[in-house]
Structure formats: C-alpha cells, structure tokens
C-alpha cells in the first residue's frame, strides 16, 4: 500500500486531499479547492445603493489613479497592501496543485468526505481521461451540488462585469504583473515559500457541474459499496457537517479507516461514528484541525471589532479520564451552543441599536442552529425583524434539510420521534419571519426588504455573492454586525470594505478532533498501524501504544506494509475432497488444493472447479526430500524383492550414483542420482510397485 498526501488543506473550507494505492486500486480522498485564495481578487464594484455608489465611485477613481501610479512605481517591490492592490479581474480558483501531477486515468475511485471536499471535483471529471467511480453520501452529494451551483451563479456576476475571458492566461497572471503584487498577495499566489504557483484554474461551468454529478454514486449511511469485487467501501458519519463522513475500506488483504476532521458531539450533524472504525488494520489520520487551531494563536489578527471574541476549539480537557466518556462528554457540544447563543445575543443587541446583522457562514449546520436560536431569542425579546436567507440555492437547501433526518444530530432526531416538527424554520417561513430569496436584486426581496434585519448569505470569502453588496451598504454603519469565521485573514478579507465602522464578530466552530481526544480515540479503535500528518508530530509526543505508526507530509509517498495474508474461503465441497498427507519431518499435514478462485465482495473464494479437463488430468505428484537408500532397500525387501546395492563412481573417483538392482521377482534397476531417481523395468507391475516404495521413503504431494 502506498499513501501520498497531495494537500494538507487549510481548515474547514479546504479539506486535505490524499491518494492511496490499495490492492492495486488508486483511491483519491476528496477533491477540494482553496476558496480563501479568492481574497487576492477585488470584489465586483457595485452600484446598488447610494452609500455603496459613493464608495464605489471614490474607490474606482482611486483605482484608476492607482493604476497610473503603478506605471511609475514599476520598480518598487513591496507595495503597501490596500484595496487597490487587489487584482481587478475575473478570478481564477486555486485547486490542489499536486493532483495535477497524477495521471487522471489511473485514479480508480474518488471518495468525497464532505461537501467542501467536492468543490474541485468538476475540474477532475471534465477531463476526458477521467474514468474513476466517485462515491459520496447522498447528503454530501446533494449539498455539494448546491454549493457548486451557487458558486457558478455567484461567479457569473464577475463574468458579467469583466466580460468573456479572452485567453487562458489573463493579464494578471503574467509574471511581471505578479511580481508587482504586495507581499501578502504574493504569498497567496505563490504559497508561503514561493514554490506553490500553479493549480489556478478558471471556474467550471454549470454544465460541468451537471456532468460531474452524473458521475457521483450516492451512498446511504454505512451502505457497503463494492468496487471491482475487491474493495468494500463504507461511509460513516464524521459529525463535521450534515452528510460528511469518514471512510472504511476493506479488501482481502487489509482494512483501512480514513478519519477526516470529525466531531464527537456535533451541533447539527449526526455525530462521529467511531465505533464503526474499530479493529481496522490501518488508520489514515487526516484531521488537521488541531494544528489549524494552533496556528490561530500565532497570527492573531486585531481586526476583530468591539465585539470581537476569540474562541479556542482546544479545551483543557481532562486527559486522565478514559474511554468513551471522554470522547462523548458534551462539553464540546455545550461550548458550541454557548458560542451560538453568544452570536445570537450580540445580534439582538445590534438590532436593538438599529443595526443589521450579516452572517456569511457557509456551514449549513451552524445556519440551521442559528435559525433555531433566532426564532427563540427574537420571540422572547418580542422583536419582529425579518431574517433573509439569500442564495441562488436557498430554497433547495432549506427544502433538502427537511428531508434528511437520517443525517441530523440526536437532538433533532428526537424531535422527529416525539412528533414535533424538525425545524422551526418551517413555521418561520409560513408566518413571514424568514424569507428565502435567490438573489439580492430579486423584485420580491426589494418589496419585502426592511432594516434592521438579519441576513444569511454567501460567500464567506467576502468576494462573491450578496455579501459583497450588503457589506458595502453596511460597512459604514457602526451599529451593524458582521459575523465571520476565524481562520480567514480578516485584514485581507475586509480590505475592499475599509474603513469599517461595522462591528465584526469572529468566531470559530468545532471542526475536528481535539488532540487529547485523539489519544483516547486510537486506544478504543485498536488499529495495528496509524499514519499521522507530520505537522502533528510535536503535538502527538511520545506515544506508548500497541500500534505502530509513522508520519506523512505533503507530496511524499509513504509505504504501508500489508498486515496479513489474503483470506481465502474454501467451499466445503472442495474441502471434502482434499486428501491430506503427513510430512515425515515436520508435524504438518499437507494437501494439494485445486479449484477455481473467485473474488466476491472483497473475499477470495475457492470453488470446486467443475471443468472436466481439470479432473481428467491430475497434476503429477511431486516428490521432495532425499532418498535414504537403506530405508528403500528394507522397503523393497519387505515387498519380497531381491535387491542389491551398487555404488557407481565417476572417472575421478567421485560418487556418481547409487544403483539398486532387483533380480526377483523380475529384473529391475533403480538409479539414484542427487535429486533424481530413475526406475528401469520391463514389467509394468514391478515398476509401479517400486515407484510406490520410493514414494514411501520420500515426501510427496
């Protein structure tokens, strides 16, 4: 087995990407793209309202001025970062560069663990050499599809503004243009060490998304999919998001568990089902969340506004407490709920002051939870402010969440069993507390629009979609609130909207396994071998474990030894026909085995071959070992033969052969040379009697 990490990813929105070679098949885990890189592009200027219009006007005039200045400042390398330094062009999207190094036609299976892990898939599937089977859970496939469609529709705005693209290599991508970018942007374009340029692609089309979805095979929860008769593939909930999953792969030689970022007690999605991953041979540990969390402390931005609040997703968990209790304690869940309540109360405060709330968070679970909370909080405050959900797929998304109770957390499932409606948003939609609109310019929205309000809309990068327009509208309003996720470089993200009077609340949500918990987890899972990311080495520390482990890093192939022989099922019909012989030296029974080998559902099975040719041509017996001449003589004498031994020597006196002459009952001669015995006899019967006697002194099969 070979494992190669193609990309370690970057947090929740850009999951890692790996490739695994198992039992002769190549399996690709996820196919994401890095949407945070969109930050280097300037959002489309807008003229939808007066404030924005003014801003735009000044903005663009500055821009033109800036462009002229550029001509003069060509030689200056490090420009200060401001709104004008952003690239004003139709954006390209950064995909997993290392994936491009692999021959697409050699990929056999693609496993999609989460909707985010799917966003780069159309780039792969539109390649004419692509022939792999793509597996995703039903919920991931549907949500992923909606996210991709939404992305394409939001991107359209850019295309409308800049016009059709003339060539594959736009102006901004030219080397000398890129060299002129400020350091912060260059780091995104080239990577931190300046070596990662590449993988920038123009976005796929709606048709690409459609064609991509046709290639996705949807799996039910824990459904066994069998690939090529050899690999059994199963998806188990990871708890990260509705529909997101970990994978169990088992073949005749090994069973493997792929653990992506997982959450033990999820706020919305069905929780991490780790019991299902027990006793697999190898665990591919691909949860980078704890190191993402640590990064956060290093480069903490100061742009969180007055209400800015840093939540850590590392809690000081009691490491000593053992087992399932540790994994399943609801501390994480309660903490998450507390965060959501905090967002709610901040929002309510802000609305009280006359401001509006803008929430560009793409996590569906969080959105659903916040809607629940708003329903309660606003009602208790006796406030009637409308909540808008603006997205080209808002309606489909909300409708879909209503029909997948199988993928929801226990708390919501219990509502179903106790006869309550799953979500309060059904009620909210009916009585006009919640509105779903496909776009910000839809006529209905303009009619119902009222401020203050709460808006959920894409895109979290603050470069695409309705959020751009609303930010331009509210950025000067000090009473309004922007709720955004940590992990995004807020300074860069908010650059085009500066100066910001608007409050910014940055918060993080649980997006993976805490390091302390992972120790307990592995103890319970009892794997034989674990692969950890290299960057977790320092956090893992010395492990006193029963399993072996090693580390992997980006673009380096790691070899994993198979832990066992292939397992073979021998049918009883065949087993009954076996004739065992006992070996002379060893205490071992052996039998010649012959049949038809089938591979069915990941298991080798040996059937009785029903071919006549097989049975009519028994394979020659094979003898092995050395002939003990004395034993043979005794054996022959027992058979009433008159036998005498003659040593034949070669010319140089070396021992050449031994001959046994049989004179009674009829003439025969046995010549024994090293590893060969020749029986010469004129009589068929005596020849066969002698050969049996020889078989008696040798081992044979």
């Amino acid at each position, binding site marked *: 087995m070979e494992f190669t990490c193609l990309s370690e990813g970057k947090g929740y929105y850009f999951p890692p990407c790996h490739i695994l070679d198992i039992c002769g098949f190549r399996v690709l885990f996820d196919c994401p793209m890095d949407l945070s890189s969109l930050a280097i592009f300037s959002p489309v200027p807008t003229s939808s309202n007066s404030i924005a219009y003014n801003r735009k006007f000044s903005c663009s005039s500055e821009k033109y001025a800036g462009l002229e200045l550029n001509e003069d400042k060509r030689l200056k390398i490090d420009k200060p970062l401001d709104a004008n330094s952003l690239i004003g062009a139709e954006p390209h999207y950064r995909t997993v560069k290392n994936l491009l190094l692999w021959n697409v036609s050699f990929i056999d299976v693609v496993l999609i663990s989460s909707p985010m892990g799917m966003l780069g898939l159309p780039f792969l599937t539109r390649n004419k050499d692509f022939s792999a089977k793509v597996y995703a859970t039903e919920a991931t496939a549907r949500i992923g599809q909606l996210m991709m469609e939404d992305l394409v529709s939001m991107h359209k705005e850019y295309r409308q503004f800049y016009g059709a693209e003339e060539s594959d290599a736009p102006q901004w991508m030219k080397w000398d243009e890129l060299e002129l970018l400020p350091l912060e942007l260059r780091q995104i374009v080239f990577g931190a060490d300046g070596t990662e340029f590449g993988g920038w692609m123009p976005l796929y089309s709606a048709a690409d998304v459609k064609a991509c979805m046709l290639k996705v095979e949807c799996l039910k929860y824990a459904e*066994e999919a069998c690939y090529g008769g050899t690999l059994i593939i199963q998806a188990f909930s990871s708890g990260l998001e509705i529909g997101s999953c970990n994978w169990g792969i088992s073949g005749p030689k090994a069973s493997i568990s792929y653990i992506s970022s997982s959450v033990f007690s999820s706020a919305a999605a069905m929780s991490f089902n780790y019991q299902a991953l027990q006793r697999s041979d190898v665990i591919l540990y691909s949860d980078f969340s704890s190191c993402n969390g640590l990064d956060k402390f290093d480069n903490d931005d100061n742009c969180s506004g007055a209400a800015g609040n840093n939540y850590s997703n590392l809690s000081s968990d009691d490491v000593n407490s053992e087992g399932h209790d540790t994994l399943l304690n609801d501390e994480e869940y309660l903490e998450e709920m507390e965060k959501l309540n905090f967002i709610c109360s901040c929002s309510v405060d802000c609305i009280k002051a006359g401001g509006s709330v803008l929430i560009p968070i793409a996590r569906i679970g969080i959105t659903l939870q916040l809607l629940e909370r708003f329903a309660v909080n606003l009602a208790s405050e006796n406030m009637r402010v409308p909540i808008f959900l603006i997205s080209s797929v808002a309606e489909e998304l909300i409708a879909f969440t209503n*029909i997948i109770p199988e993928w929801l957390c226990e708390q919501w499932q219990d509502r179903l069993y106790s006869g309550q409606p799953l979500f309060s948003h059904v009620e909210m939609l009916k009585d006009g507390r919640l509105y779903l609109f496909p776009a910000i310019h839809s006529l209905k929205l303009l009619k119902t629009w009222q401020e203050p309000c709460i808006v959920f809309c894409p895109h979290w990068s603050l470069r695409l979609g309705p959020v751009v327009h609303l930010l331009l509208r509210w950025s000067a309003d000090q009473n309004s609130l922007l709720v955004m996720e940590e992990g995004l470089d807020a300074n860069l993200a908010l650059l085009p909207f500066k100066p910001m009077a608007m409050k910014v609340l940055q918060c993080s949500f649980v997006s993976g396994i805490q390091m302390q918990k992972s120790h307990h987890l592995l103890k319970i899972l009892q794997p034989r071998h674990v692969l950890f990311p290299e960057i977790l080495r320092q956090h893992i520390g010395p492990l006193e474990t029963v399993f072996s482990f090693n580390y992997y890093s980006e673009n380096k192939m790691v070899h994993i030894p198979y832990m066992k*022989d292939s397992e073979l*099922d021998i049918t009883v019909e065949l087993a009954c026909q076996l004739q065992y012989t006992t070996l002379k030296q060893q205490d071992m029974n052996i039998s*010649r085995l012959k049949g038809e080998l089938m591979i069915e559902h990941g298991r080798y099975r040996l059937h009785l071959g029903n071919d006549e040719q097989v049975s009519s041509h028994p394979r020659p017996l094979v003898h092995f070992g050395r002939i003990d001449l004395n034993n043979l003589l005794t054996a022959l004498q027992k058979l009433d033969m008159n036998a005498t031994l003659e040593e034949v020597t070669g010319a140089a006196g070396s021992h050449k052969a031994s001959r046994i002459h049989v004179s009674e009952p009829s003439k025969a001669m046995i010549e024994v040379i090293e590893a060969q015995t020749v029986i010469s006899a004129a009589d068929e019967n005596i020849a066969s009697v002698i050969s049996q006697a020889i078989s008696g002194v040798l081992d044979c099969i």
Partner: protein
Amino acid sequence: MVIECLVLGAGQEVGKSCVVVTINGKRIMFDCGMHMGYLDHRRYPDFSLISKSHDFTRSLSCIIITHFHLDHIGALPYFTQVCGYNGPIYMTYPTKALAPLMLEDYRKVMVDRRGEEEQFSSEHIVECMKKVTAVDLKQTIQVDEDLQIRAYYAGHVLGAAMFYAKVGDAAIVYTGDYNMTPDRHLGAAQIDRLQLDLVITESTYATTYRDSKYVREREFLKAVHKCVASGGKVLIPTFALGRAQELCMLLDDYWERMNLKVPIYFSAGLTIQANMYYKVLINWTSQKVKDTYATRNAFDFKNGMISGGFSLEVFKQWAPCEKNLVTLPGYCVAGTVGHKLMSAKIPTQIRLDEDVQINVRCQIHQLSFSPHTDAKGIMDLVKFLSPKHVILVHGEKPKMVTLKEKIQSELGIQCYLPANSESLCIPTTHHIKAGASDAFVRSCLSPNFKFLKTNSAELDDSHKRTMPLLQVYDDRVSEGILTLQKNQSPKVVNQNEFMEALGVEKHEVKLAHCFRVYIPDSESGDASDCLPSTSRKGSLLHLISEKLCRELPDFDVQDCQEHIQIQSVVVSFCSNEKCPHRTGVSLQSVDKKEVHFCCSWSVADDALAWRIVASIKNLELDT
C-alpha cells in the same frame, strides 16, 4: 451448521408475525406482532418458547422490526417492558417515528373505548422506543462481531423493510410484508442479489394474480364520484396508516382534475400526525414523489380538511342510509367489523358488541389495491434471490400449500410452511477459512492460456467448418498446497513457496524402459536400404508418431525429429548397447531390422507410458 427457525406467530395464519431465527448461535427475533383477532393470551406470540427462564435479553442477540403495522410490532412494548427484554432493537427511521403513533392509538382504543385492562401503558411505549436503534436502507450494521444485518426497501408501507442477516457464512432474508409493484406513493421492493441459505417470505396473496391497478383505481374513483354526485357521503376507513396517504393522493389528484369541490375530511389525529412524518421522510417514498419535493411536497394536500371523530362512530351514523358509501380495505383480519361487512349481504345487521347492533343499508365498495405482493411477486422475488430454502409465513394454509408446491416444482427450491410454535432446522453453507499467500493469489489471477491444435485430417467435413484449427483456453485453475500445522490456521501457498519454506528440494522420480522392436522392411524393393540410416529412422519415428496420434486422440503428440514427446513421455531410438534401462534378456542385435527404443517418463504418466510402449511393441505385428 444449521439455521434453526422457530415460528412464534404468523405460521399458517395472518397476524402476530414473530419468527425467531438462530444462525450459528446468534438468535434474532424478526417482528414482534400481535393478533388483532384475539383478545386473550393468543394475541401475543408465545414468548416462553424462546427461553424457559424468561431471560430474553440473554437469549436473543437482537430484535428486528420490519414495519409499523400492529401485527408486526404490537407486542413489542409488552415484550420489552413487561417481559423485560433489554437488548438491541432495530427498525428503519420511519418505523421508529410512526410506530409510537400506532401503538398509542391501539392502546387508547383498547383501554378508553373497549374498557379493557391495558397490556402496556403510554410510558411503556415511550420507554420501549428509546431502546430502538434506527437504521437507514442498505446500512450495514454490525450488531456484534459476528452478526451483520441490513435493511432493504420493501414497498408495503412507509419505512417497511426486508432484512438481511448474516452470521459467518450463513445468511438469510426475512421479507416482512412487501410489495413488488410501485403504488402512488411508494416504490416497489428492491434487494440485491445475495447468497442466501434461507428466505422467509410473507404469502398473504399466495394464489392471487392481479391485473393492472389503474383499472382498480378507476373503479374506486368512479364509485366515490357517483356517491358524492348523488349527494351521498363516503366513508373510507383506512386501518393501515400508509393507505390513507395513498388514497388521499389519489383523491386529491382526482378532485383537481375533475374540479370537484366536495370537501374531504381527514379523521384527526393519526392521519394528520402521520402526514407530517410522510413529509419529512419523503426520501422513503417513491422516486416520482421524491423528484417533486423541491417544488411541492406531495403530502401537502390541497383539498384536505380536518375534523374529529373515529371511523367507527361515523360508520354507525352513516351505515343506515343507502345513499352513502363505505369502502373496505383489501384485507380484513378475521373478527373485525371490516371482515363482517365483507362477508355480509346488504342490507344487513351487524353486531358491534354485546349491546350495539347497527342496520347497514349503505353501499359497500371493496378496495382491491393492496400493499402486499401477489403470487407472481413472491415467485419473482424467490427466483431472483434463489436461496437454498424458503419458508412461507403470514398467509392462509391452503393457499400456502399451493404456493409451496409451485416454488418446489418451478424453482426447485425446498419450501416449508411451519405452523405456530413449530421449529425447523435448515443446513447452511460453511466455508473453511485459510490464509493465502500473495504468490498463490497472483498465480491464480494470471491468465493460463492453453493452445490446442485440432488435427484437421481427423475431422469429418461437418466438424471442419465449425471447429477452428487452433483453440485457445484460459483455464485459471488455481493450484496450490494447503498446509495444516498444529496451533496455526490453515495456509495456502504455491508449490515453490512451500518447498522454499520447508527448505527441501524437489526430487524427481522417473521411470525408463528400453526395449527391442523388430521392424519388418515394409518398403518395397531395396530403395530403403539406399537411404541414409538417420532419415530412415526419421521416417520410422514419423510413422510411429502418426500411429500414436491415431491411437491416442486425446493427447498432444509432438514429433520432434529426434524423439517423440507425449506429456512427459519421451520416445527415442537407442543406439547405446549398454543402455542401463535395458532390462531383461539382453541379446546382441544381429538383425538390422531390429531397433531399440528408449522411453522415459515421470511417475504421473505411468499408465500412458505403458500404453505407448505396448503400442510401439505392436508395430511389428501391425506391419
């Protein structure tokens, strides 16, 4: 190894489905139903047969419930809360959601209306449902290390599932109730092709063959329309939860098409509540309904209104008027009002209980669409699954006997119909497990081409055309060596590996025989003498090879100039006067026409070799 099958209910009857199956030591209870026709102890399965000590938690590995109908789940709260079963229970998400409604409704009817002593309380139902693990379709659940179960779509009602259970190499399917044709809101049953030892199937309609259901739907709508058009009222009691939705969709559709304004009332409670579930669990309905969910949830009925009242109360009021219409479901359990009406001739009197008797003058329409499969469906399913054995339950004995004979004669599958409390043993498949070395697996998977030449001369004309001259075979016969050592699991390796592992060398045992043949000079004249001896010998070998070809048509005779080879047998001239393989009387060959042949072969071809020797020796007689 055997599968033991203990039928606690629905053996040669319909009602209280409950089968306990023991597979390789794992005991699974399929369904835990109650009989609606009895009020005494006979309404529950006889649980004491499972365990004399009544320690049910220990004696059962799990309970599997196929769907929410009372004859499949009715006894569950009693079994868990009163009898004390505390182990795992599995059912699909919709069943878990809808079952409490059914149970609570039943409990209310029994206690509040019939004034009976309750068998289980509301709390019992709630507590019982807490122990249930909900499963998704096709989800493969590892109940414990050995027992694996999986649900498949069964149609019948929302959330109805067939269950597959596997322990070791033995596997069975228990169908529960199923429908092989899609209806208005549910799809048809769907299952994978599995390797099964046993299928336990329902057989409600063991001898019925249904025509298209559209005809039946039209009849129903016509009857309803006629009744309301002439000012009558229509009562549609739907005992089964799913039927209500099916009929509502049908009527809703018809009302819209015909632009009818006559109100449709749903009996409050059960249907309304259930309808909410249908909306959320739309993924479990038919593909057609699912596809439309984004625009309009098919379970948002436009023409529906809500009102209170039980169907029986309404029936009492409406039955005496001949303008009204009452529809009856396709199957009514013996003892119920529906069953009495079905067999009655209108007008008639029906006794509800001791004191109440009603005059029935209304029209009766029997609904003939049923969520159960018909006989063709059962046959299709059994044929598709091709198990080694079939057990029929949930049907009426005479019809089951007919179906059993059909299954045995047409499909050649052993079929049984055990009665209640009967236990049945069925042999199972079992495989021997062994480890296989990589080299063995590789050698098995690599192609093994064999080229067989057909000698065209031997074929008559008719064969010449059809038989190609060269035939290529790819017989991937797997050959290896199975080794058994004490305290080790069996292992399969290939021959070379085996030798290497033991550190031994192959020892070849060969046989050889050198013999004299008198060759009469067959060629006319002296021409032969002039020929160089080698070429003369060559032609002689050729002669022999042709003879052997004729005599041994099954073997590939290779004429290689200097020698002839058949399998491992090598025949050549021997000019060595002191050939060690010459045994017996050694005479100096004087006659030029006397030739020695030396044959050698390995032990395996012994019989063949002696045939060849005899054949060559016969040369002198032949010629």
